[in-house]
C-alpha cells in the first residue's frame, strides 16, 4: 500500500487555517448477520479473518504514523465503527486501541468511541473495554420493539438493548449513545414514541435518530420496490419528527445535527469533525481518509485489504471551489450551521457573493438564514435539507 502525501495546491493552502487535530476512524467490516436495510460494507461469518484484519490495520497505522505531516498533528478523537466492532472481542479491540495510542500523538482525555451491538458484548468485555481506554459507547439498538427488530433483520431483542445499556453503565461508561430508527414499516407515531420513551428512560447522553432510508441493492429496497413493505405516510413521518423534537428536548438533550441529539457537553466531537469537512484518518476496508483536501478511500474488500502490498486505494481531490461547496453542504447538516468568516478564511471564497441570488432565494423561501455570521438551515430547511443542498453543492 502506498500512502503518498497529497501535495496541497496553492488554493488548498487556505485549509491551513483550520484548527489542527485529526480524527481517527477504524472501520471494522464484520457482522454476525447483515441487517436487511444496511448498505454499508461488511462481511459475515469470517472470524478466521479477524487476526489478519487486525494485522493489516496495524500495518496501516504504522504507515500513517511514519508521515511527518501526520506526526505534526494531534489525534483528537478515535472512533471504532462498523460493521459491528464489538464482534472482534475485547482483546483484539484493546490491542488495536493500544496501537493507536502508541503510534499517534493522542490528545489527553480524547474522545474514544466504540460501536457495539446488543448481544455481542457481555459485562466482562465492557469492563475490559472501558479499562482499555474507550470512554464513549454507541449502541446500535435501532428499536425497542421486538417485531420491528425482526423486520429490520436485527439479531437481538429489545430486552438485549436495555441490558446492554445497563451493563455499559455498570462498566463505567458515562457517555452513551443509542442509535434508533423511525419511519419503519408499519410503525405509527405511537409506536415510535414508545421506543423513544424507552430510550430516554435509560438516560443516554447522546441519541442518533435516523429515518429509515431505502438504499439501493439492499433486500429492504428490493422488497419495497416489489410493494411488500408498507412505509408510514409522509404525514406520519412528519408527526414523528415533531414529537421527537419535543420529547428529546424535554429530556434535556439538544439537537445539534440533522439526526443527532446530545447533552450540551456530550456532542460527538469525532462526527463534528466530519461535518466540518476537516482532516481525519480512516483505517480498515472501505474507510475514507481526508487529508489536505484529498479524500483517500481504502478498498472495500476485506480479503484484498488483508493482503500485504496490494494497491488498496482510490483518491479524489476536489478543486478549491468544489471543496468549498462540499464543506458548505456538510456544515449545513449541523443545527448551528457554518461560520461564514471561518469559511472565507479557509477557502478564500465569500459565500454570500459566491452564491448570490441562489442564496437570496433560499433565504426568501425561509429555508436558510444568516444570523450572527452563521449560515444555517431553518426548521423548514432541515426538513428539505437535500433540496437546499442541491442548490448549494
Amino acid at each position: 500500500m502506498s500512502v503518498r502525501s497529497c501535495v496541497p495546491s496553492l488554493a488548498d493552502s487556505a485549509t491551513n487555517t483550520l484548527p489542527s487535530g485529526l480524527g481517527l476512524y477504524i472501520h471494522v467490516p464484520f457482522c454476525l448477520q447483515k441487517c436487511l436495510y444496511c448498505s454499508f460494507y461488511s462481511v459475515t461469518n469470517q472470524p478466521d479473518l479477524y487476526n489478519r484484519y487486525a494485522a493489516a490495520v496495524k500495518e496501516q497505522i504504522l504507515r500513517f504514523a511514519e508521515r511527518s505531516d501526520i506526526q505534526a498533528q494531534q489525534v483528537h478523537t478515535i472512533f471504532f465503527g462498523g460493521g459491528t466492532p464489538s464482534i472482534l472481542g475485547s482483546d483484539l479491540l484493546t490491542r488495536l486501541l493500544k496501537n493507536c495510542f502508541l503510534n499517534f500523538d493522542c490528545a489527553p482525555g480524547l474522545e474514544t468511541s466504540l460501536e457495539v451491538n446488543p448481544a455481542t458484548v457481555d459485562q466482562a468485555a465492557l469492563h475490559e473495554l472501558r479499562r482499555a481506554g474507550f470512554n464513549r459507547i454507541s449502541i446500535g439498538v435501532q428499536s425497542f420493539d421486538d417485531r420491528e427488530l425482526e423486520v429490520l433483520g436485527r439479531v437481538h431483542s429489545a430486552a438485549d438493548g436495555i441490558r446492554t445499556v445497563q451493563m455499559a453503565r455498570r462498566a463505567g461508561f458515562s457517555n452513551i449513545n443509542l442509535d434508533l430508527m423511525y419511519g419503519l414499516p408499519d410503525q405509527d407515531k405511537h409506536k415510535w414514541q414508545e421506543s423513544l420513551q424507552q430510550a430516554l428512560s435509560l438516560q443516554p447522553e447522546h441519541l442518533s435518530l435516523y429515518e429509515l432510508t431505502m438504499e439501493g441493492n439492499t433486500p429492504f429496497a428490493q422488497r419495497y420496490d416489489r410493494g411488500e413493505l408498507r412505509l408510514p405516510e409522509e404525514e406520519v413521518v412528519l408527526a414523528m419528527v415533531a414529537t421527537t423534537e419535543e420529547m428529546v428536548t424535554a429530556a434535556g438533550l439538544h439537537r445539534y445535527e440533522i439526526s443527532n441529539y446530545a447533552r450540551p457537553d456530550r456532542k460527538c466531537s469525532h462526527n463534528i469533525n466530519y461535518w466540518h469537512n476537516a482532516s481525519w484518518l480512516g483505517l480498515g476496508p472501505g474507510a475514507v481518509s481526508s487529508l489536505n483536501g484529498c479524500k483517500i478511500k481504502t478498498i472495500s474488500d476485506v480479503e484484498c485489504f488483508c493482503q500485504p502490498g496490494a494497491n488498496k486505494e482510490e483518491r479524489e481531490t476536489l478543486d478549491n471551489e468544489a471543496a468549498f461547496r462540499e464543506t458548505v453542504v456538510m456544515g449545513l447538516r449541523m443545527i448551528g450551521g457554518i461560520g461564514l468568516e471561518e469559511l472565507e478564511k479557509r477557502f478564500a471564497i465569500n459565500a454570500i457573493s459566491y452564491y448570490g441570488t441562489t442564496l437570496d432565494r433560499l433565504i426568501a423561501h425561509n429555508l436558510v438564514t444568516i444570523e450572527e455570521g452563521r449560515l444555517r438551515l431553518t426548521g423548514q430547511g432541515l426538513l428539505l435539507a437535500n433540496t437546499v443542498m442541491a442548490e448549494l453543492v
Partner: protein
Amino acid sequence: MKNIRNFSVVAHIDHGKSTLSDRMIQLCGLVADRDFQDQLLDSMDIERERGITIKSQTVCLPYTAQDGQEYELNLVDTPGHVDFSYEVSRALSSCEGALLLVDAAQGIEAQTLANLYLAMENDLEIVPVINKIDLPAAEPEQVALEIEEDLGLDSEITQQCSAKTGEGVADILEAIVEYLPPPEGDPDLPLEALIFDANYDPYRGTVISVRIMNGTIKPGEQIIFMHNKVEYRVEEVGQFLLPKTKKKSLSAGQIGYIIAGVKTVSDTKPGDTITHKENPCATPLPGFKEVQQVVFSSIYPITSDDYEDLTSALEKLKLNDASLTYQKDSSAALGFGFRCGFLGLLHLEVVQERLEREFDISLILTVPSVKYLVSLQDGKEVVVDNPTYFPDPGTIDYIKEPFIKATILIPERYMGAVMSLCMERRGENTHYHYPMPGRIEFTCELPLAEVIYDFYDKLKSVTQGYGSFDYALIDYRQSDLVKLDILVNSEPVDALSQLTHRQRARERGMKACESLKEEIPRQMFKIDIQAASGGSIFSRTNISALRKDVTAKCYGGDISRKRKLLEKQKAGKKRMKTVGNVEIPQQAFLSVLKSDQ
C-alpha cells in the same frame, strides 16, 4: 455500363436491412474485419441505438462475380421510416433493382408492402430476400409462399439468408448480378443527374449524391440545378467507396457524388436535376416535389443563456438536414426560441436528440401541432401551426385540418382493437381487405393531429407488436376545433396550449392535467393545474407541496457519495424550466399530448 448494378434494399423496419448491408460490405472486402462495427452505414449514435436509418448513405461495392467479371454494385441505402417516404422514393428512382427484405419470422408487414409499391412505381426489378432464417421462429417456406402468392413475385429467384451469421449473403450478391438489369443511358447525351441525397462535410461543403441518367460530368464544368435555378462549378466527382474516392468523371448509369462548393444542404433538393450550363437537357427528370413539413413545435433552451448556442446549433444541423425548417419564435412562458417544422414525429425526436447530444443543449419542445387553415369571417385565410397564434374564436368562420390516409396491416384477430383505436382518433371512411389469408389491410382516413403523437405506439400496443403502419397526407377537411389552455398556479402557460377537436377537449384537458401531475415533481409549495378552454375551466388537479427531503446519515465515509447524489439532483433541476415560480421538467411539455398510459 453492363457491369454496373444500382440497387436498394427495401424492408419493413427491423427486418435487418442495415445488417445485410454491413454483411455485403464486408464480403466485398470494403472494410477490414477489424475496423468493422455494426450498422456501418448508420453513422449517427441515434441510428445505432434505435436500429433505424435516418440519414441514408450510399456505398459502392466492387465485386468479382463467379463469371470472373468485375462489377460495380451501388447500394443505395434508404431511410426506414414513414416520415421519410419521399426521400425513399427519390433513392429508389436512381436504381434499376431492389432487394425486398422480409423477416422469416415476421413475414410481410405494412412497410414491406408500402416500400414494394414504391419500388414498383419506379419500375424496379425485385429480388425477394428472406432474412433471419437462423431464428428459431423462422418460417422461410411460409414466407416464401406469401411472397409468391400474395405479392406475386417470382419465387424462383427468392433468396434466403441470415444477415446476422452471413449465411446466404454470397448468393445474394450473385443474384444481384444475375437478376437485376444493368442501367441504361447514353454518356454522350446532355447531362441529366438526379439528386437523391446530400450530406454536409465541414471541409468541402455539400456532398451531393447523384445518379447519372444521361451524359457525363467532370470537374471544372459549370452546372445548374434545374428546380433551384442556381449555378455552380464542379470541384470533384467520385464514387462511394469506403472512404469516398475521387474519379475523373461520372457518366450515364453510374452513382456517385459531386462536390461543387454548395454551402448548405438545403440548396440541394432531393429529386432535383443537375445538368450542364452549356448544352443542358430539355426538361428536368420527373417526380420532383418540395418536401413538406407536417409537424411543428417550438424549441426553447432551458436556460436563456443557451439561446446563442441553440441558434448556431440549428444552423449547423440545418446544413445537414434539408427537411428541417425553423424561424424565430417567442413565448410568454419560455422566452426566446424557434418554431421548427418537421417531416413527422420521429424526425422531431431525432432533431431533439441531436441537438442535445451533439450540441449539449438542454431543450424544451412544446406540444407538437399540425398546420391548420383558418378562414376568417372577413374572407381571409390564415395558416396556424402554433396554438399561440390561434385567432379569436369570434372572428373565425371555419377551420380545416390535414387528413391522412393510414394503411395498417394486421393479423385478422386485431381488427376490432384497431378499428376502435381509429374511431377513438376520429377516423373516417374505413376500408379493409385481405391481401393474404389471415391478414387484413385496413385503411382509414384520420386527422393528422390525432396521429402525430402516440398513434404508432398505441397501435403497436393494441396489436401486441403485430400491427404495422404507413401513411400519406391526403387533404384538408373542415373541423370544429378549440384551443385548450393549461394554467399552472392560475397562469396560462402558452407552451402547453394545444388545438383540439371540441368534442375531445374535455377528455384531453383531463388527461393533460393528469400527465402534468405525474411529470412535475413536488415543489416547496402546492401547485394548481387547470385545463381551460374559452375562459371556462373544466378540469383541475394539484400537486401537494414537498414537505420532506433529507438524508438521515452522513459521516466521513459517505461525504463523496452524498455530494455526488446532490450534484445529480442539481443537474436534474437544471433540466427543468422555471415558469412563473414552478419548475417544469422537459418531458412534461410533450406529456400533455399522451393519451391514457
